[in-house]
């Protein structure tokens, strides 16, 4: 029996879809079978992040409303052999999912029998869409950036997850800028963890490569040379229970670090 993990945030645009996709890709690269389900109904994104947008025939609402069988709606990834996608519907909205909540529960249960991990990319907010997505999850990943607004909204989501009885929830701190933290201009990871009282799954640095990979429809987790890619690889291993150190100042590989390395060599 697999595990269902919901990726949530409260505030929009903080990196839920990026995290879902790369965590899914990371786990699949480590040999697990993974189904990524896009439940941000009306705002389909995962298909394009994975580069699968041309292959989608059926979506999750088609399955829910009986227009196709679940197996017909599941699309295999082009590059990672054990990664699969169930796309969101573009023409429906969040309330449609909430109305068929029992059917959605059945579908998740069926998927958990088939895959090691079922990852739900949930919509922003704390309304119907979030409630439906988190209803059947065994664990939750809360994504935030180190900004006051995002952290405040994350706190609200954590409260709701606890109220739902989802005790296993972890934090992904995204778009972390080591240089800004160092100069005292950004909340540091300790502050955020202390404020939210939640376990850290990983830190993803701000990395422009995330955009260039998204443009190509490729997952950055497959790249061993990008900071964000390496961060998602570590996050995937931690989620599987491996103890992986938290490297400090990952981003320091800028000019300053190069100079330091050079001086040490010389």
């Amino acid at each position: 029996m697999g595990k269902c993990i919901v990726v949530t945030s409260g505030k929009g645009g903080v990196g839920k879809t990026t995290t879902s996709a790369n965590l899914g890709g990371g786990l699949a690269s480590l040999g697990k079978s993974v189904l990524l389900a896009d439940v941000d109904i009306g705002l389909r994104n995962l298909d394009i992040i994975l580069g699968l947008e041309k292959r989608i025939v059926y979506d999750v609402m088609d399955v829910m409303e009986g227009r196709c069988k679940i197996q017909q709606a599941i699309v295999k990834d082009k590059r990672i052999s054990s990664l699969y996608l169930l796309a969101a519907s573009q023409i429906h909205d969040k309330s449609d999912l909430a109305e068929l909540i029992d059917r959605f529960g059945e579908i998740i249960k069926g998927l958990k029998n088939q895959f090691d991990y079922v990852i739900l990319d949930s919509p922003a907010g704390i309304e119907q869409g979030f409630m439906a997505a988190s209803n059947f999850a065994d664990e939750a990943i809360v994504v935030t950036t180190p900004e006051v607004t995002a952290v405040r909204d994350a706190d609200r989501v954590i409260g709701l997850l606890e109220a739902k009885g989802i005790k296993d929830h972890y934090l992904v701190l995204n778009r972390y800028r080591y240089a800004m933290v160092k100069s005292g201009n950004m909340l540091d990871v300790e502050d955020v963890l202390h404020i939210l009282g939640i376990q850290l799954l990983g830190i993803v640095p701000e990395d422009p490569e995330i955009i260039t990979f998204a443009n190509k429809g490729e997952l950055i987790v497959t790249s061993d040379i990008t900071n964000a890619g390496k961060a998602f690889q570590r996050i995937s291993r931690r989620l599987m229970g491996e103890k992986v150190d938290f490297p400090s100042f990952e981003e320091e590989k800028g000019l300053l670090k190069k100079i330091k390395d050079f001086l040490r060599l010389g």
Partner: protein
Amino acid sequence: MGILDFLFKKEDKNSTIAKERLQFVLTFDRLSINPALQEKIREEIIQVIGKYMEIDEEAANVFVESTESDLSHLIVNIPLKRKR
């Protein structure tokens, strides 16, 4: 605080300001207490205590404080009027 610390005391870091502001809003978010409700609680507590003791209503203060531990405390500070 040493004399040097005093002389070179910097302004609060930007991130420290962010942390303190967040802790303040979250205390009330988590309790679902808005400032208006807080004022109502203050008035009622003062009213009850005032029935039995002579208090300095102006200086009375009721507030929530979060400490380094995970607990938040409701602090009630009501000065009594000196009696002779």
